[in-house]
């Protein structure tokens, strides 16, 4: 029979390479530091409790992310965070000049990679907060978990099409916030152009 201590060490050895990603996922998903730590602790305990059902040779990373993602979603439902988030209205579609200005700002950002870090820095927290729980889960499982659409669908128990739709909406919202941030940090020469002045 396997020594119980060996099983724990085996679990921890599998877990260690993914700890940073799991922690980043929890912190980005929940924002509240204490909640993130509680979710990680709860997830690790639940996963270890089910470790006998883990199939060796399968994707431990996806298996572990499933525990953290489901616990985070459950935590948010329990704490009513989802309902709170839903109270924030989506930014209005805006009139055409504003939409064009945003598109221009976004394209300017894509064309000038040196401005990307500042735009992300200025918009990341707000853009994540603008996502629904489901959208945030899908986006983070893809970006941090590096999981395939099928794996994300299995974790969240939803159809593949829902994953693709949620991811597309999440990215669209993130890019809108990025465009806003990029417009605010636009280089002076470009910002001084008459078209921009009229659009803003």
């Amino acid at each position, binding site marked *: *029979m*396997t020594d*119980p*201590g060996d*099983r*724990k060490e085996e*679990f*921890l050895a599998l877990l260690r390479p993914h*700890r*940073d*990603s799991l*922690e*980043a996922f929890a*912190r*980005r998903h929940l924002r509240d530091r204490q909640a993130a*730590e509680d979710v*990680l*602790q709860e997830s*690790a*305990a639940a996963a*270890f*409790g*089910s*470790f*006998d059902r883990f*199939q*060796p*040779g*399968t994707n431990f990373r996806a298996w572990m992310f499933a525990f953290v993602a489901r616990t985070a979603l459950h935590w948010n439902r329990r704490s009513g965070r989802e309902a709170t988030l839903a109270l924030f209205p989506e930014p209005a579609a805006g009139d055409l000049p504003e939409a064009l200005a945003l598109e221009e700002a976004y*394209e300017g*950002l*894509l*064309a000038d*990679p040196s401005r*990307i*870090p500042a735009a*992300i*820095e200025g918009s*990341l927290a707000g853009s994540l907060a603008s996502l629904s729980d489901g959208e945030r889960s899908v986006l*983070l499982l*893809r*970006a*941090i978990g590096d999981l*395939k*659409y099928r794996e994300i669908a299995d974790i969240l128990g939803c159809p593949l099409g829902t994953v*693709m739709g949620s*991811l*597309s909406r999440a*990215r669209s919202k*993130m*890019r809108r916030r*990025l465009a806003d941030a990029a417009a605010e940090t636009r280089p002076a020469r470009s910002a001084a152009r008459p078209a921009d002045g009229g659009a803003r």
Partner: protein
Amino acid sequence: MTCAEVLRYLSPYLDSELDPRTSFDLAEHLARCEPCAARVRGEERLEAALASALRGGVADPALWRRIEGSLPAAPRRRRLRLLPALAGALALSGAALLAWALWPGPRPGELDLAAAVAADAGAEQPEAGFVPSLRPPEGRRGFRYEGGRHCSLRGTPVEILRGSAGGSSLTLYVARSEALARFPEAAARIAAAGSGKAVRCRLPDGRSFAAASGGGRLVFGCGAAPPEVLDDLVLATLAAEGR
């Protein structure tokens, strides 16, 4: 494919989740349309920066020490009698061994590109009307072309050519050299080998693998043919005039 369609498929394309045919068409469009190619490059940079920012932040080793310390000594024990427990353990070990034996993925020391080829099921039917952009001269090393299709290998659009040489079946893959960005080990080995040379290794099932790049193209292949035959066919394909 139109520029508007490129934007529509952008998200799954960046995630390597697009179906092989659409992925191939999109890559072909990007090769011809610089504005779209620039947009995709920009989106790739942005997506990488976003992922990096999301993953960033200070990890807390103390948190994980607490978590590790809080775990019990063993997973939750189910009340199993000795015999079923032993049977379960044997079944698990057998499954693990079987999974290891059948796993077509990367092994230590194996090229990443070869691992992707090894994982390719390779059972698809040839595509009707398919004309490869490159192929080795018919008859070289006894090569006989049997058909091909568009496909996607780890999200990279490729053309697959099935054929045989000297009675051994083999598969050749043709892609744009940019595809090497997804296979850094192969890229480094090919760069070290220099132009006009193929790099080679063995797949887990014993088949030979060879790859070479030049003139904006990447050609690789695998098969039961001797390594020198495969090398020659890969290089001959690379040197062939495109359609």
